[in-house]
């Protein structure tokens, strides 16, 4: 393992490590455009030049491997002069778009220029004109004049997605990124093109002109879009502006996790967040009165629910109750649910496995056919196979053997269709707990508004059996509550139930009681998650 000196600090790294990566290990950031840790190196932008003792010229740190006893300087006048010069070159043909550029505030070029140059332009001639507002794909837009021709987007498509659909046409300072004329990028990973683009050349249609990046708060999360459990960051605001009334969540960006999503997100997941602030969000408890729902308060709704369940259990026994939880819920939610129904009410008919749950369209890269983030968690918590299957429950609801049905985030109508619709409409008591209005919700007698993944603490277990943490970034919309909290409140009314004050307390109990979670704590999970079980079969 070679040992080298970078800016007077010694570091030992693996054979083959580049200077740039070795410097990163020391916390020394070397500016770069074309280098991307997950893509092949091309040595093109020349932004990463550094001085190596005894080398005749500056060398590109992104591509040159370290040697034993190498002495590297990353901040000499020569290096600084080179950076200034490269930045000046990039800017001569770059438009002065910063004030209206979506990348402003998080643009590498802007940041570097501010940091390494900050000089007025000496360019007096005409800039090269290129295409602007090119509709490159369903999800993003290209502004060629802002492009620094780093080629990252091209390599992303080719190397990560495995499609050669972007190219660089022409040559010299007329070089321009593009798809074959008339064609569009169609893959499910377009958002990553926006991420890998160091500048505002590629911007997401979903985010364009909506919000200045620096006004957004960030929190670590897990994409709830499928069972892959991609690590993500949610960008949100605590108040709305720009006339985008009510929008609090503005985007999801990937968070690096080598074992899960590398540093990518799929478009389905990335842009699946809109349900959080959509107009069909359930924001207050409601009760069915005749054909209509009437807004109620938690007290009334919980009282109705509790007494309804109690009556059914007392009169017809626990087998007259069915519970269908959704693997959208967190482990904490599901554990709290299990405690309530299985321990307190002795209900055996609990099954999350609605037929077709895992029949979405997946792909080879990240997206899984199972569009639920916590299926593996639901399995590990034993929320299936203890009583009737979800499908069988439908039959029994129809025949009247099951009188009360509790839908915890699940939407049987979506998966089973008419048959479910018929069954649900015959239920004596149908409780719907969830985040958004749905076909199943429509038939409910009581609606309990739940919190979305950005509005609560908790954990998901992805398909690999990796336990990962989500964080509360925002308060639940309206009067919605985290699902575990709803169960806690209900539990209080139905018998001896722990008075959980936070998700972590639920987790602690779960860690004590459920084998795969034994000995774990939120701290132990950490930002990268922890593997607690095998993949599901």
């Amino acid at each position, binding site marked *: 393992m070679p040992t080298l000196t970078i800016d007077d600090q010694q570091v030992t790294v693996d054979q083959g490590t580049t200077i740039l990566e070795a410097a990163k290990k020391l916390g020394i950031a070397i500016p770069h455009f074309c280098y991307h840790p997950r893509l092949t190196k091309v040595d093109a932008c020349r932004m990463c030049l550094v001085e190596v003792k005894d080398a005749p010229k500056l060398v590109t740190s992104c591509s040159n491997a370290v040697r034993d006893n190498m002495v590297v300087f990353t901040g000499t006048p020569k290096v600084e002069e080179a950076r200034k010069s490269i930045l000046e070159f990039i800017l001569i043909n770059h438009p002065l778009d910063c004030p209206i550029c979506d990348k402003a505030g998080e643009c590498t070029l802007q940041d570097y220029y501010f940091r390494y140059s900050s000089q007025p332009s000496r360019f007096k001639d005409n800039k090269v004109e290129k295409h602007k507002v090119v509709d490159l794909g369903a999800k993003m837009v290209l502004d060629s004049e802002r492009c620094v021709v780093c080629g990252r987007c091209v390599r992303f498509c080719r190397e990560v997605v495995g499609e050669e659909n972007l*190219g660089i*046409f*022409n*040559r010299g300072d007329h070089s321009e990124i593009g*798809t*074959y*004329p008339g064609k569009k990028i169609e893959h499910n990973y377009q958002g990553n093109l926006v991420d890998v683009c160091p500048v505002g050349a590629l911007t997401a249609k979903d985010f364009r002109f909506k919000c200045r990046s620096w006004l957004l708060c960030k929190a670590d999360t897990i994409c709830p879009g499928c069972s892959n459990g991609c690590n993500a960051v949610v960008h949100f605001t605590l108040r709305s502006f720009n006339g985008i009334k009510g929008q609090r969540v503005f985007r999801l960006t990937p968070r690096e996790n080598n074992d899960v999503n590398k540093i990518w997100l799929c478009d389905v997941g990335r842009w699946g967040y809109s349900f959080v602030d959509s107009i069909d969000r359930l924001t207050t408890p409601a009760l069915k009165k005749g054909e209509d729902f009437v807004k109620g308060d938690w007290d009334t709704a919980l009282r109705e629910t509790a007494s309804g369940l109690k009556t059914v259990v007392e009169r017809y026994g626990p087998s007259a109750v069915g519970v269908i939880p959704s693997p959208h819920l967190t482990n904490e939610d599901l554990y709290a649910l299990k405690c309530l129904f299985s321990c307190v009410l002795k209900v055996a008919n609990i099954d999350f496995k609605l037929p077709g749950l895992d029949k979405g369209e997946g792909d080879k890269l990240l997206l899984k056919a199972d569009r639920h983030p916590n299926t593996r968690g639901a399995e590990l918590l034993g929320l299936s196979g203890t009583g009737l299957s979800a499908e069988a429950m439908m039959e029994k609801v129809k025949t009247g053997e099951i009188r009360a049905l509790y839908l915890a985030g699940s939407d049987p109508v979506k998966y089973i269709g008419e048959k479910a619709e018929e069954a649900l409409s015959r239920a004596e008591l149908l409780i719907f707990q969830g985040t958004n209005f749905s076909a199943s919700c429509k038939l409910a007698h009581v609606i309990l508004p739940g919190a979305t993944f950005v509005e609560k603490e908790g954990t998901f277990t992805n398909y690999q059996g990796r336990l990962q943490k989500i964080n509360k970034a925002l308060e639940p919309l309206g009067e919605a509550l985290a699902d575990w909290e709803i169960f806690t409140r209900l539990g209080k009314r139905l018998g001896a139930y722990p008075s959980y004050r936070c998700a972590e307390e639920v987790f602690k109990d779960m860690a004590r009681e459920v084998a795969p979670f034994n000995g774990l704590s939120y701290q132990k999970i950490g930002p990268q998650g922890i593997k607690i079980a095998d993949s599901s079969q």
Partner: protein
Amino acid sequence: MAVAFSEKTKERFKAILAKYPEKGAALLPAMWLAQKEFSVITPEVEEYVAKLLGVPLVRVHEVLTFYTMYAAKPLGKYHLQLCTNISCTLLGAEDILEHLKDKLQIGAGETTPDKKFTLSTVECLGYCGTAPVLQVNDDFHENLTTKKVDELLAKLK
């Protein structure tokens, strides 16, 4: 109508393919064949060539736009390519260019309305010892003078 090589060209293409260790390497030769057969590399031709070689369409387009000798637009019957690089300019290529523009009433990069001539300026053609030089399709006319240009154009009518 979809474009396709003639049987003869298909044979030639097959022979070319056989010479290369990797199929994709035959892209430039295939585009030369295509240009000869169809005169212009239209989008249909690009698609045809891409399919023929199993290379991504976008790569064909990169190649088409990178190299100067493939014609993405129709050229005149005679493609007049005047070298305006250093040795030719030292010996009067600019006068020849003005003369050609005058005679043909078009600018560099343009084609006469009768589609007979396309005039281009090109980089060094490797005939510096007999500058200035004009390439007309595949023939080279060296030691040019305006008089020689006149004679040449008369012949090409």
